[in-house]
């Protein structure tokens, strides 16, 4: 695989793990239309936006949109962000010939979702370095 699929596979393996599934937080990647009625879920967007040490390495940002019900306060999205921190912040993941290293996270409340007023969106952002063997 190329570095983008390798990166995607590395990040997706975290959210495909039994441990994450046990958290019971519905998780979707970008370009998947959710067709259930869950009002609390997250959506991942991987943004590999900067070069790194070699052709097979890249750094970037993992943006996770956290959707919760509107008009219930901030606790629900902060709780999900804390769970994400447990899995991601400063964590390193080895897979095949690759190493994925996450750094610090930031949580930004974005307000009522522009596509659905029944949802509130907060944005969890964490930077990463992805190292591949050249």
């Amino acid at each position, binding site marked *: 695989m190329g570095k983008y699929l390798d990166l995607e*596979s590395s990040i997706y393996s975290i959210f495909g793990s039994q441990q994450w599934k046990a958290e019971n937080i519905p998780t*979707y*990647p970008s370009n*998947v*239309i*959710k*067709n259930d009625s869950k009002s609390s879920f997250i959506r991942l967007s991987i943004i590999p936006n900067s070069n790194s040490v070699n052709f097979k390495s890249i750094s970037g940002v993992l943006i996770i949109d956290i959707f919760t019900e509107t008009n219930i306060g901030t606790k629900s999205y902060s709780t999900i962000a804390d769970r994400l921190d447990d899995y991601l912040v400063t964590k390193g993941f080895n897979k095949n010939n690759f190493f994925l290293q996450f750094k610090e996270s930031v949580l930004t409340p974005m307000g009522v979702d522009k596509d659905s007023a029944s949802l509130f969106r907060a944005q969890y952002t964490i930077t990463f370095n992805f190292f591949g063997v050249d």
Partner: protein
Amino acid sequence: MSYRNLIDSNLRIAFKLLKDLVDDISIVKRSNSDFDFLNNEITASEETIYLKAIIIESTNSNSKSNSKKSQCLIQKSDVTTLSVGDVFNYKGLDYKITNSIKDDGSILLFDVEREVSNG
């Protein structure tokens, strides 16, 4: 007979009277979808429904895209619900239902779109 049943019944008669203005179509509805992160694919159950539809108008591509959009009308009792992303098959071609589904309780009016060749 309730008003709802009366409307549905009259709609069915109207669809019959329209004869060749009504087309046979199918809709593939995806439900219970989940994403399998380990295999990087959607897992979902699919159901195909065959029904009658009226294609109200079609718009061809503009300068920024090469797609064909159509507006369709169906009886709600034939399908109950539709979701954005469901697949609409008309004359052997697959269209995606886009984000405009109007529901007046008896009729569903929605847009479908597909990429077309410009040859």
